[in-house]
């Protein structure tokens, strides 16, 4: 508690100021770290994210053979990979897309642009993805 806050509470205790006046004064002397509205607080920059982390955690009841996977991928590698994917000839990327579709992944390699990737990374900087499946949990976040 700061000195100003203490003084205000002492004045309230001595009856020199009313509760409303104390409340108003306290809101004026609040330190920046205790701002009322957290959404208006400027976001402390953690620096731009450098890695994408994917953690696959099996459920505790999965039994033997369940794998725990922890992968850390540098975002620079993903960006470079997107660049490399754009150099793949069209007839080859068609075959790759078809193979992905057979696996249930509806993705077109040619549509992945670096700008879209930056948007995705920015979005992941604000949130984390948690997926609970039958056999375990998948946690995706950037750091």
């Amino acid at each position, binding site marked *: 508690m700061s000195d100003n806050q203490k003084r205000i509470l002492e004045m309230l205790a001595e009856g020199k100021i009313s509760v409303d006046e104390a409340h108003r004064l306290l809101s004026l002397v609040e330190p920046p770290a205790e701002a009322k509205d957290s959404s208006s607080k400027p976001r402390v920059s953690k620096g731009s994210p*450098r*890695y994408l982390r994917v953690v696959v955690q099996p459920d505790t009841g999965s039994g*033997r*053979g*369940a*794998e*725990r*996977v*922890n*992968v*850390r*991928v*540098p975002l*620079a*590698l993903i*960006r*470079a*990979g997107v*660049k*490399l994917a754009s*150099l*793949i*000839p*069209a*007839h*080859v990327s068609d075959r790759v897309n078809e193979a992905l579709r057979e696996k249930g992944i509806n993705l077109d390699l040619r549509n992945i642009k670096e700008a879209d990737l930056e948007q995705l990374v920015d979005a992941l900087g604000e949130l984390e993805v948690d997926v609970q499946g039958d056999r375990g949990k998948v946690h995706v976040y950037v750091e």
Partner: protein
Amino acid sequence: MNFPPYLLRLRIRNRRRRIRLWLPLFLLWPLAVVLALILTPFMLILAIVFLCRGWGRLLLAGPVIFRCLSALSGLEVDVKRDHERIIVSFC
């Protein structure tokens, strides 16, 4: 500018044995540079020849491949199952 990773750390652990390997990648990169310099004229010729078939751009992907290799630093894969564990990391 990022540089390619200088070390590959490999750890394999199971019930019977534990293996720890540190592979010095920094010894490979000079060889790769020399090889790239030797192959560059041939790659240029092949790129011109195969440009109409769509492979030309891929054959000139040397800088992009270098960028991919440089970005490997920090890649880490850790897989654990029962009493077995494999960790691969590029430093």
